[in-house]
Each structure stands twice: as structure tokens, then as C-alpha cells.
């Protein structure tokens, strides 16, 4: 029996076949030649789904919230993409987000766990493609969970239409340094674990921060939740819907998606260049620029400049 064609896989995934969708996601995750074909095929049909990012500190309750959100969305085919870091040493990963989701979601929710697979920046390069595949398969909404530490939050926001930032009581002390960054990416704030003391204090902190720093037409609302009990999740979903309609009416959705695709292309160029750079370095012989660096005849910077000029011929030559 020959393996199914890409078209067959897409058709079957669209009809709700979990296994076909699972396969397609593996293909984009591998980032090989097939990935490019899958991505291209998916891109044709993508653009329908709402993409919601959920980020926040480790253990803040992202998975619990995400599972509950999928349930209250009332959507026919919600999907969750749960991303965890790969170990930089071994490349392995423990993907444990499903534990906190399984009990709450219906069987029509498609959950995929993804490891970052050692790509710098924290977010797997395959995430935009994975979202694209889920979208093309007819899933909606698509909720992307990522651990937010420092810079990663910004990357998540780049992948989503609506970004939900989850904090917990006492968060203020923990992320003191990056408050500005949070403010920039959050469309909605959640204070989760509201069953704990001082959830209101946390909300007050956020209000204060928004009073000082918020710009533009949209002021991020703050929702208190106790995700384990499902409390506040309906409110959170309403705020997400309100933000979705804001995105539509303001024209911001088009701008965001346009920005997102541009930065994806830029990321790809960067990756491709890096890859080519490594290959050039590997192919270098003793008489090459690299050899001259070894013999201290040429500085690494000068060698790089030479090689770069060879890589991109129309690189304007220096005066």
C-alpha cells in the first residue's frame, strides 16, 4: 500500500481524521523538504482560524486555562498547540501539558505537544507552520501555549492574533524587570489562582501598570480566574471574543497578520543564511579565508565579510 498523498492527507485531516492531522504536523515539525510542501499546501487554505496565544511563567496555570478555554469556546473543532522547551543538552523533552487538559476538553479537541527542538529564540521555528496546518485542517480556534520567560513572550505574540498573559498572585516581584515587555504583548491579562491570597493585589498592580503605560485604542482587560475550578473562564472567553471583534473592526487583524508573515519570512531568511554559512565554513579548505584566519593572517570579521560577499553577490562592495 503506497503512503497517502499530501492532498489525501489534507482532505482526511479536514474531515476530522486525527491521525492524518498528526502526520502532517510531524512533517512540518521535521523542517525537511516535505515540510516546505506541506506548508505551501496549508498556506492556500489557511487564514480562517482565530489564533490565541497563552503565555506566562512556568506553572502559572496556562495548560489548565487552555483546556478550559477550548471547552467553553463552544467551537466544533478547537485545537491546542502546547510548546515546551527541548533540553539543550540532549535534545529530549518532557511534554506534560496534556495532563492538565485532558480532563476538561472534549474528544473533538485536537491537542498537539511540541518541543522547541533547540532553536534559538525559544519558540520552535515550526510553530507558524503547525498553526497553518491546523488552520487548513479546519480547526478553530487554535490556542498556542508557551512558557513565557523573558523574550519568548514577544515571540508568542508574533504568532497569535490575541495574546493572553497569565500571571499569579505575587507575580509582580518575579517579573519586575520585564513589565514593559509584558505590557507590550498582552491583549488580555489573566490573574490565575485567584483562590490564593492577594489576587486583588495582583490586579491592582496590573491596573497601575496599564494606567502608566498603555497606548492605543485597546486597553488590556484583566480577568481573575481559578482555572482548576473553571471560575472566570467564561469571562476570559468573552474578553477574547471582544478582542477578536476589535481586531476585525479596527483593521488591526490585517495589520497584525501582515506583520506576522513578514517576520516569518525574515526569520526564514535568517535561518537559511545561517545554514548556508555553516555549510560554507565546513567546505572551507586550508587556502581559504578560514585557513588564513587560522594562520592569523585575516581577522574573523574580515573573513566573514569576504564569505558573505561571495554568498550574496549583490552585496554592495565596500568603498
Amino acid at each position, binding site marked *: 500500500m503506497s503512503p497517502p498523498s499530501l492532498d489525501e492527507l489534507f482532505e482526511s485531516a479536514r474531515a476530522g481524521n486525527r*491521525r492524518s*492531522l498528526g*502526520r502532517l504536523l510531524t512533517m512540518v515539525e521535521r523542517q525537511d523538504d516535505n515540510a516546505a510542501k506541506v506548508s505551501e499546501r496549508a498556506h492556500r487554505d489557511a487564514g480562517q482560524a482565530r489564533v490565541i496565544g497563552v503565555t506566562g511563567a512556568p506553572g502559572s496555570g496556562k495548560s489548565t486555562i487552555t483546556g478550559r478555554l477550548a471547552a467553553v469556546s463552544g467551537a466544533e473543532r478547537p485545537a491546542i498547540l502546547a510548546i515546551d522547551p527541548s533540553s539543550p543538552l540532549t*535534545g529530549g523533552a518532557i511534554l506534560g501539558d496534556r495532563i492538565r487538559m485532558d480532563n476538561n476538553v472534549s474528544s473533538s479537541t485536537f491537542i498537539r505537544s511540541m518541543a522547541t527542538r533547540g532553536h534559538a529564540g525559544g519558540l520552535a521555528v515550526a510553530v507558524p507552520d503547525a498553526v497553518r496546518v491546523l488552520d487548513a485542517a479546519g480547526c478553530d480556534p487554535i490556542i498556542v501555549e508557551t512558557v513565557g520567560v523573558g523574550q519568548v513572550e514577544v515571540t508568542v505574540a508574533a504568532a497569535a492574533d490575541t495574546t493572553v498573559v497569565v500571571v499569579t498572585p505575587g507575580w509582580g516581584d518575579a517579573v519586575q524587570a520585564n513589565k514593559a515587555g509584558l505590557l507590550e504583548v498582552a491583549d488580555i491579562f489573566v490573574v490565575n489562582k485567584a483562590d490564593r491570597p492577594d489576587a486583588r493585589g495582583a490586579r491592582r498592580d496590573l491596573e497601575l501598570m496599564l494606567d502608566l503605560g498603555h497606548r492605543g485604542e485597546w486597553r488590556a482587560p484583566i480577568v481573575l480566574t481559578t482555572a482548576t475550578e473553571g471560575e472566570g473562564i467564561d469571562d476570559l472567553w468573552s474578553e477574547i471574543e471582544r478582542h477578536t471583534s476589535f481586531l476585525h473592526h479596527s483593521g488591526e487583524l490585517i495589520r497584525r497578520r501582515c506583520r506576522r508573515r513578514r517576520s516569518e519570512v525574515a526569520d526564514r531568511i535568517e535561518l537559511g543564511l545561517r545554514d548556508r554559512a555553516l555549510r560554507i565554513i565546513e567546505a572551507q579548505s586550508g587556502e581559504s579565508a578560514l585557513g588564513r584566519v587560522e594562520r592569523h593572517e585575516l581577522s574573523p570579521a574580515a573573513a566573514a565579510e569576504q564569505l558573505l560577499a561571495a554568498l550574496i553577490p549583490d552585496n554592495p562592495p565596500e568603498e
Partner: protein
Amino acid sequence: MSETSGTSPLSSVDSEPLRVVLAKLGFDGHDRGLKVVARTLRDAGMEVIYLGLRQTTDSIVAACEQEDADVIGLSMHNAGHLTLAPRMVQAVKEANLGVPVVIGGIVPAEDVAVLIDAGVAAVLGPGASAEDVVAAVRAAVTRPSPAR
């Protein structure tokens, strides 16, 4: 489409990490061993999809499909292995998944052959070393089982 694997010229990893679904079936609450195994496999470079306690054959099959897993690992400590393990193997067959099932935990020596006969790829017990665990999982995946 001619092939679905093949090494990528763009990726710096030599081979794709194995994806392993780890779970406990039913009401058996002994999850310490499963957690140890999860870390062991991660440290061996695998991606572990940890489902934890109280799973059913259906929930495991669904997870395998969504996660496109290469292997299922179950941990059993409540003397239910003779019923539950073959049931898992059967569920995998019915879903046409073609993934091997590896078992660990408390399995009396005389039951091991029975489980292997029923289609379980490997059975490990208390004291299994990290090397044993990794080797069993790798072997289960590479052994020609019902083709994926």
C-alpha cells in the same frame, strides 16, 4: 508523495527524536516509576508525551494519533497487566496505529511470556537501569512491527 522521512538538509539534528507516549491505565496510582522513565527517556534525547494517571485505551489511542507517537509506554503496578496490556495492544491494532507497546512495573516473571505472546514489545521490572529502559524503547521501535 514518494517518501515521508529522509534526513533534512536544513536541520542540524542528525535524526528526529523518538516520540513516546507514557501513561498509566485505570486506577493504579503508582506513578513514581513512570516519572523516572520519563526523565530517563528525555535524557536519552526522546520527546516524552506524559499523560500520567487514569488513562483509558481510548485516551491513549487518541493521544498517539494527535501526537504521531512512535511508541507507547505503560507502567503497571496493580496486577491488572494480564487484562490491560493485551487490551491496549488490541486497541492499537484496531486503530491501525502500528506502534509498539512497552510495559514496566510489577509483572511476575511467569507473566512476561504471556504478555509478549499477546503482542507486547518488551516488559521491564523494578531495578531496570536507565540503559535497559532506553534500549527496550529503542529496540521496540526499530524491530519490524506492523508497518507504520
